[in-house]
């Protein structure tokens, strides 16, 4: 064997052993409790890189703000919270890996994280296997109720169903569905079709585009030919920018081709350009303009920490709420143990930026007020309708006869 080959082998062996040896330095310590020491660690797990970073970074920021505020108000059980921030990198297996790392190595008391349904589905088995808690802050497609997840975003009966009620009230008869090709739009559209069938409305078109798609001329052409009363838009992220720019440049405005969107918030409006999307409808549970002293304080604090030009949006608020709700539950339970927190969380009710928020102990979702808004030329969203009171979460739509057979 030549010297050269020998060197190759030695170097290769060095690579293998360096990995094994340095990994063995990371030892988790199963004996230490999750609230031992002077601080309580909590996990914050969002995509800080990749395609989802655009949305998730702002949720991380608002969660960190909430943690700061909880600490300023005395912390949890008299201890300061110490956030451990991890990057899910817009990659679902990475979310699962980092969730496991937060649980077994950082030994966090709870974790706030996720945005896409895919990231939640990836993390769910990890939290169930370890019997630890995840707080998930984004509106989603429902049909799920894990005992180890608290859902602080809207489920379908708090966002999509009220939006449909509103459209029905306005006399819209024909609906065209446009969505990104993944589980949320497909489930949402299934619900819309069931609702339409039972309420004298008609779905006259259904189109899906790959995530990140930026070419919408054909769909705009189809819309122009179908002439629906309303376009129900479940596109995600970047695609909204392309869709609204191309809709506008094809000569359609909110008057001639009205749309209602469930994934376009203040943050996205800024990227699309308010001029391109003004007058269109959105459905959420919170807007930056939602009235109330609690929201004023939230917006002021957020801008003071991150910059006066920043906007606040529904998912950011839901992430902020998640931290506040967990802290309240832990303080009430007098412990950060999962079972104690779950038990204490049931029925907890706080005054939060969107109004009064109560945790439903049965399915671990929260009561939320549905709000329909119109996008303004200045990029803000003005509320034009709300449900009057917080709606009880019903992730499986059991209380709606027309939804039988959906789940």
């Amino acid at each position, binding site marked *: 064997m030549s010297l050269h080959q020998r060197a190759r082998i030695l170097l290769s062996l060095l690579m*293998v052993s360096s990995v094994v040896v340095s990994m*063995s330095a990371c030892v988790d310590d199963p004996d230490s409790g999750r609230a031992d020491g002077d601080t309580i660690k909590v996990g914050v797990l969002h995509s800080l890189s990749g395609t989802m970073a655009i949305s998730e970074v702002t949720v991380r920021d608002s969660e960190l703000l909430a943690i700061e505020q909880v600490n300023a108000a005395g912390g949890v059980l008299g201890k300061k919270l110490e956030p451990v921030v991890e990057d899910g990198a817009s990659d*679902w297996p990475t979310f699962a*890996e980092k969730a496991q790392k937060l649980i077994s*190595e950082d030994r966090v008391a709870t974790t706030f994280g996720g945005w896409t349904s895919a990231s939640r589905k990836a993390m769910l088995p*990890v939290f169930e296997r370890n019997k630890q808690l995840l707080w998930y802050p984004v509106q989603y497609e429902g049909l799920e109720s894990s005992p180890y997840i608290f859902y602080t975003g809207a489920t379908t009966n708090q966002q999509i169903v009220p939006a449909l009620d509103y459209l029905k009230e306005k006399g819209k008869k024909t609906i065209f569905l446009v969505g990104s090709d993944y589980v949320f739009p497909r489930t949402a559209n299934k619900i819309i079709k069931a609702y339409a069938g039972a309420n004298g409305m008609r779905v006259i078109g259904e189109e899906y585009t790959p995530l990140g798609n930026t070419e919408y001329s054909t769909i705009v052409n189809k819309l122009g030919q179908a002439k629906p009363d309303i376009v129900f838009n479940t596109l995600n992220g970047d695609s909204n920018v392309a869709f609204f720019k191309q809709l506008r440049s094809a000569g359609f405005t909110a008057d001639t081709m009205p749309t209602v969107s469930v994934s376009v918030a203040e943050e996205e409006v800024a990227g699309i350009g308010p001029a391109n999307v003004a007058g269109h409808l959105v459905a959420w549970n919170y807007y930056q303009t939602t009235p109330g002293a609690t929201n004023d304080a939230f917006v002021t604090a957020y801008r003071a920490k991150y910059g006066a030009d920043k906007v606040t949006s529904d998912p950011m608020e839901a992430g902020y709420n998640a931290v506040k709700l967990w802290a309240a539950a832990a303080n009430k339970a007098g412990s950060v143990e999962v079972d104690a927190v779950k038990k204490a969380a049931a029925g907890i009710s706080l005054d939060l930026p969107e109004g009064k928020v109560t945790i439903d102990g049965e399915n671990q979702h929260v009561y939320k007020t549905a709000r329909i808004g119109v996008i303004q030329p200045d990029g803000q969203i003005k509320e034009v309708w709300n449900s009057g009171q917080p709606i009880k979460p019903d992730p499986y739509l059991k209380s709606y006869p027309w939804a039988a057979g959906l789940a």
Partner: protein
Amino acid sequence: MAPAGLAVSAVLLLVVAPLVLSPFRLDLLAKYLCYAIVAVGIALAWGRGGMLTLGQGVFFGLGGYAMGMHLKLAEAGPGKLPDFMSWSGVESLPLLWKPFANPVFTLVMVVLLPVVVAVLLGSLVFRQRVRGAYFAVLSQALAAAFVILLVGQQGLTGGTNGLTNIQHFFGLDLYDDADRRLLYLIVALVLGLAYLGVRQLAASRYGQLLVAIRDGEDRVRFLGYDPALVKTVAFAVSAALAGVAGALFVPVVGLLTPANLGVVASLELLIGVAIGGRYSLAGAVGGALLFNYAKTVFSEELPDSWLYVQGALFVVVMVWAPRGIAGLAGQLRDRWARRGPLRPVSYPAGADRPQEVST
């Protein structure tokens, strides 16, 4: 690797690692080992055969989805549907899924599916003498198309979510640490077998022919050999290894999504090999472990700058160490032997020169 080196590595991975690593870290190592199995195949196709395949994720995915389908069916129990189908409104089990209830069929498909696709693609493409950059771009397009296809068929494939929540693997309880350790050992053993098998292949007459084709395809053709056949075989072997790795990845990680086999994922499979040394099988294995470990560490410690580090890794390795870490010694020796002005890149005469674009 020489017997001594091989023995040390085997002891490290099979005995030391399971003893000293925490269950969480052992899981991570198992995942890296899956990538290392792919790396062995890439070292054969790219290092020895000069075929830069940017679509290795496709084969990884074919093997992975075959295994995932079986595990989801086993999970659901006879006559029941996997969880994601009920969310997607699928009423009865699609025809495509039915045979995957059979474990033997599944294991055969894990290898056969990638091999069939590789042979189909390879025999057409190599017969037409598509090579170099063309082949790279083509395989990349294949990966992009495959992902769109998987995402678009939500009822059949789980869409963007992929196949998640896999809890059992042929009787192993994936929620149990002892069983997971066993799974780790299986992965490590498969890697060892893959390494030994490919080493044997590369050392054979066939392996020499493959290298000869890389360095001078037309000359070999004039000698009366069929380069397309030789290249297709190497391509198929690398595809089979990627398929097996994908099948093991599913129980190790507990899920498989289209993002694991797209354009970027395929490139990441390559960079580990490039870092370790594409011309050395052992180097490719070491590089895959090192790269994926670095990815974990950096994204834990410096999530914001991981992309910089990853980008810089590509650049530094390509500029200063095109033969990878395993080839560093040889590179230094060559430089010393030449004693000329230092040039950033050096290849030994003939032997290691990759293929050029034909115009």
